[in-house]
C-alpha cells in the first residue's frame, strides 16, 4: 500500500518544518508496526551506524517513501528521484548504495536490492565529526570517508584506480557542460602524473604506474580534510517529507 500523504503542512524546504510535531504523530500512527520494529532494533542500529534514534526514524520514513513501503530498495527506486536527474554522477552515487564494499564487509561485488540496515550503513559515511571526537577517531572517520570515495572510483574492485577508471570519473564531471574528450584525457593524465610524482618520486625506467592505490589516494587528498567536508546534515527532529521523493 502506498505511503499516505499526510501533508497539510507547508512544503518542507527548510531544515525544520514547523508543523513537525503534530504531523509526525499522525504519520507514526499510520505507520504503526513499522516504527515499533525500528524502535526495537534501535540500540543495535544506533551502535552500528552512529546515528541517533530520531535520525534513524527519519531516515526510515524516507526509506519507506522511496521503496513504496516495501522492505528493500532497488536501483529503479533511486533512479526515479526527480532531483537526481541533473546530477552528473548520478549513476555512480546509486551504484555506491549497492556496492558490497560499503557495508563494512570485506566482500566485493554488488547487491541487487538493499535493506534499510544496508541503506543506513551507506548513509553513515556522511555523518559529521562531533566535538568530543579524539584525533584518532577523526583519523578513522577520514579514512572511512576516503574509502567510500575510493570505492566509488574503483569500479572493478581490484583495489586500484586505473587511468581508464579515473578518466571515466573526469568525463562524468565534465559531461554537465559540453563533451570534451580531449580535455578529459589531458586532465586525467595530469592528475595521474601528479599522483605518481608525489607518491613515487623516484621511478626507475622500468617501472610503470599501475593505478592509484588507497594509500596514494589518501596521500593525494590529504589537504582536503575529508572529515570536515564530506558530511550532510541529518535531521534530528521529527519532520515530514511532503509529497513524493
Amino acid at each position: 500500500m502506498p505511503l499516505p500523504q499526510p501533508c497539510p503542512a507547508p512544503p518542507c524546504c527548510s531544515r525544520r518544518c514547523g508543523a513537525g510535531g503534530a504531523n509526525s504523530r499522525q504519520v507514526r500512527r499510520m505507520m504503526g508496526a513499522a516504527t515499533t520494529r525500528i524502535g526495537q532494533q534501535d540500540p543495535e542500529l544506533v551502535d552500528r551506524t552512529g546515528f541517533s534514534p530520531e535520525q534513524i526514524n527519519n531516515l526510515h520514513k524516507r526509506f519507506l517513501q522511496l521503496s513504496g513501503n516495501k522492505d528493500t530498495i532497488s536501483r529503479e527506486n533511486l533512479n526515479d528521484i526527480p532531483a537526481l536527474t541533473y546530477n552528473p554522477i548520478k549513476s555512480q552515487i546509486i551504484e555506491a548504495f549497492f556496492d558490497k564494499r560499503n557495508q563494512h564487509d570485506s566482500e566485493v561485488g554488488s547487491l541487487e536490492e538493499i535493506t534499510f540496515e544496508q541503506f543506513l550503513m551507506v548513509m553513515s559515511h556522511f555523518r559529521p565529526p562531533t566535538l568530543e571526537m579524539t584525533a584518532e577517531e577523526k583519523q578513522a572517520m577520514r579514512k572511512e570517508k576516503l574509502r567510500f570515495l575510493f570505492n566509488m572510483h574503483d569500479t572493478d574492485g581490484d583495489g586500484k584506480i586505473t587511468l581508464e577508471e579515473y578518466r571515466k570519473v573526469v568525463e562524468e564531471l565534465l559531461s554537465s557542460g559540453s563533451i570534451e574528450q580531449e580535455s578529459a584525457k589531458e586532465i586525467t593524465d595530469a592528475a595521474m602524473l601528479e599522483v605518481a610524482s608525489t607518491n613515487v618520486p623516484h621511478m626507475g625506467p622500468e617501472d610503470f604506474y599501475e593505478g592509484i592505490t588507497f594509500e596514494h589516494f589518501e596521500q593525494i587528498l590529504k589537504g582536503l580534510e575529508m572529515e570536515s567536508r564530506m558530511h550532510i546534515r541529518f535531521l534530528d527532529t521529527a519532520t515530514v517529507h511532503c509529497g513524493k521523493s
Partner: protein
Amino acid sequence: MAGLGSVCSRRLAGFVSLLLLVFVAVISASPDAATGANETLRRPSGHSLDDSHHPRNSSEHRKAFPVLAFNYEHVSKPFVISLWILLALLMKLGFHIIPRVSHIVPESCLLIFVGLLVGGVIKAMDQTPPVLDTKLFFLYLLPPIILDAGYFLPIRPFTENMGTILVFAVVGTLWNAFFIGGMMFAVCQIEAAQVGHVDLLSCLLFGSIISAVDPVAVLAVFEEIHINELLHILVFGESLLNDAVTVVLYHLFEEFAHEGTVTVGDALLGVVSFFVVSVGGVMVGVIYGVLGAFTSRFTSHSRVIEPLFVFLYSYMAYLSAEVFHLSGIMSLIACGVIMRPYVEANISHKSYTTIKYFLKMWSSVSETLIFIFLGVSTVEGPHNWNWIFVIFTLILCLLSRVLGVVGLTFIINKFRIIKLTKKDQFIVAYGGLRGAIAFSLGFLLTDTEKKDMFLTAIITVIFFTVFVQGMTIRPLVELLAVKKKKESKASINEEIHTQFLDHLLTGIEDICGHYGHHHWKDKLNRFNRTYVKKWLIAGDRSSEPQLISFYNKMEMKEAMMLVESGSAAKLPSLASAASLQNAQQRAPPKQRAIPSISKTREQEIRKILRANLQKTRQRLRSYSRHDLFSDPFEDSMSEIRFRKQRVQMERRMSHYLTVPANRQETPSARKVWFEPEHKVYTYDESESPRDGAALETLPDTVSLLSESPQRPDQSSRLRKRGDAEQSANAPDSQEEPQKLSRCFSDPGPKEEEEEEGEG
C-alpha cells in the same frame, strides 16, 4: 668584507631615510615660508616678461631673463603628497632590511611608530602636521584596501560560514556597542572622574564608534600569522560586514545626541534603516558588478584598458553607496565578488595580472599611509587625557569582546556542524582589533568638548590593540598550536574531488529528501551556468566547465613558471615569482627525480634549445600602445605551452639518455623533433587555438621520432595514435592497455617505440 659592506649599506639606508624624514617634515610643515619666498620671486619674473613685451614701461630697472627660477608654490601640493608616499614606502622597505625587528613586531606597529616620530619632529619645529583628514581617509585611502580584500575574498569558506560571520558582525557589534556605551555611562557617573557631563547618548555614540572590528588592522596583523582559513575568514568577514551596523548606529546616535532623547519609533526606524543600509549597499554593488562583467565581455579589442573598468566600476559602486549613506564597504565587496568570475573569464591574462598587482599595490600604499598618519595625528592631539575614562574604556572593550564571542559561539555551535572550539573562540576574540575607521569616525564628531576625550580614548584603544594584541598574537598562535594555513598548491586532483564531492553531497541530500545547503548551491550553480554566464561571458568560454578552466589556468601558471625560470635543464626548484599577499603561491613544485647527464650532452641540448628559443623570439610581434599583442592571449598561451612542452621533452630526453641503449640516432632524432615544431607557428590560429591546434600537429611529429620518451602529458597524443592503431591491430588489444599505462612513467624499452613509431 661583504658583511661590512652590507652593514655599511644598511647604515647608509637608515641615514638616507632619516634625512628624507626630516626633509619631508620641513617641506610639508612650512608652506608659509615657501609661499612668502615665492611671492617675491614671482613678481620680478612677471615683470621681466612684461618688460620684454612692453619695452615702453621700462621705467623700472630691467632684470635679465631668469634662466633658473624657483617656483615651489606651483607644485607644492602634488610634491608633498608624492613625498609622503615615497617616505612611507621607503620606511616599508627599510623594515625588511632589518630582519630581526620585522619578525617580532608587525609592520603596522612599526609604521605607527614612524608616524609618531615624524609627528614629533614636525611638532618640535612648531608647525602643524597634516592630520588624517576624514574625507581623505574615507574617499581615497580606504577603498583600495576594501576592494583588494573583496576581489580576492575566498568565496567558498565565506559562503559556508556566512551565518556565523553575520551573527558575529551584527549581533556581536550591537552587543559591544550597547555594553560599552551603557557601562561607560555608569562609569561616568563616578564622581572622581569629573566626566559627569557626558550623557547616555554620547556614551552610546562613543560605544558604537569603538565597537567595530577594523578590517585594515585585522588584515595587517592576520596576514602575517597565516592561521587557518576558517578563523581568518571569520574574523575578516566580521570586520567587513559590521560596517553596516557601524554606519547605522553612528548616524543614529549622532542625530539623537543632539536632540537628547530617543523614542521607540526612532529605535524602530533604526532597525529598518539597518536593513536598508546593508541590503541597499549590497544591491548597489551587485548592479555595478553586473555592469562591469557585461562591459568586460566586449573588451577583446582593447585589452589595455580592461583593468581600468574593474577599478572604476568598483569605485563608482563605493561612491554611489556613500551618496545615499548606504554601506560603501558592503557595496564594494559585493561588486568585487560578483564581478570577478565573469571578468576573469573574459579578460586577457596580462590584464588579470595587472589587476592583481595594482590592487595589491594600492592597498599596500593605503595601509602604510593610514598607519603613518595615525601616528602623526596622535602627536598632533588635541588630547584630553582622563585616566578613568581611558582605562575603563580599554577594560570594557576587552571584556565585551570576550563575553560577546563566548556567548555567541555558544548559540552558534548549536547550529553549526563543525563546531568552534575554545581555541577558535580565543583567536576570534583576540583578533578583534580596532583601527583607523574608529579614529576617523571619532574625528568626525562635532562636539569639541567631548570629542577630545573620546579621541584620546579611541587612540589609546587602537594603540593597545595594534601594539599589544598585534605583537602577541603570533607567539600565542604558536603556543596554542592553532592550525595554520595549509600551503595549497593548485592540485588538479583536489579540484576534481572538490567538484566530485559537491555533486556527491548534493545527490545524497536529494536521496535523503531534504533541501539543504548543497541543494541550493547546486541550483544556484545551474542557474548561473544556463543563464548568467551566457550573458556575461564572451565567446565560447561561457559554456566551459569549471574543471577545464581550472586546468587551463594551472597549465598556464606552470608554463609561465617554466619559462621564467629560464634554464631548462635545471631541477624544478624554481625561485617563486614575487608572491604578494594573496597571490596564489605555487609551492615548491613536485620533485621530479632527474638523474644527472653528461656535460657534453647537456651542452648540446642547451645549444639546440637556445637556438630554437631565439627563432621563436623573432616571431613575437611588435609592440603598439593600443595592442599588447596583435594576437589574442590564446596565441601567447599556446606559445608558452610549446616552450613548456619542449622543456619537458628535453628533460625527459635527458632522463632517457642515461638508460643504457644505443644512442647514436639521438642527434638526428632531436633535429627531426624540433623541426616540425616550427610548423606549428605558421599554423593559422583561426580556430580555437587552445587545445585543437596544439594537438593536431603534434602527432605528425611523434611519428618522426624513432625513440621518444613519452611523458604522460603527451601520452594523450600518443594514445590518440595508439587508439588509431588499436582499431587497426585488433589482436594487440590486450597489449595496448598495458602499453598505454606503461606510458605513464618512463619510456619502456626500445621495441615499444618502434611499434608505435611505425603506425
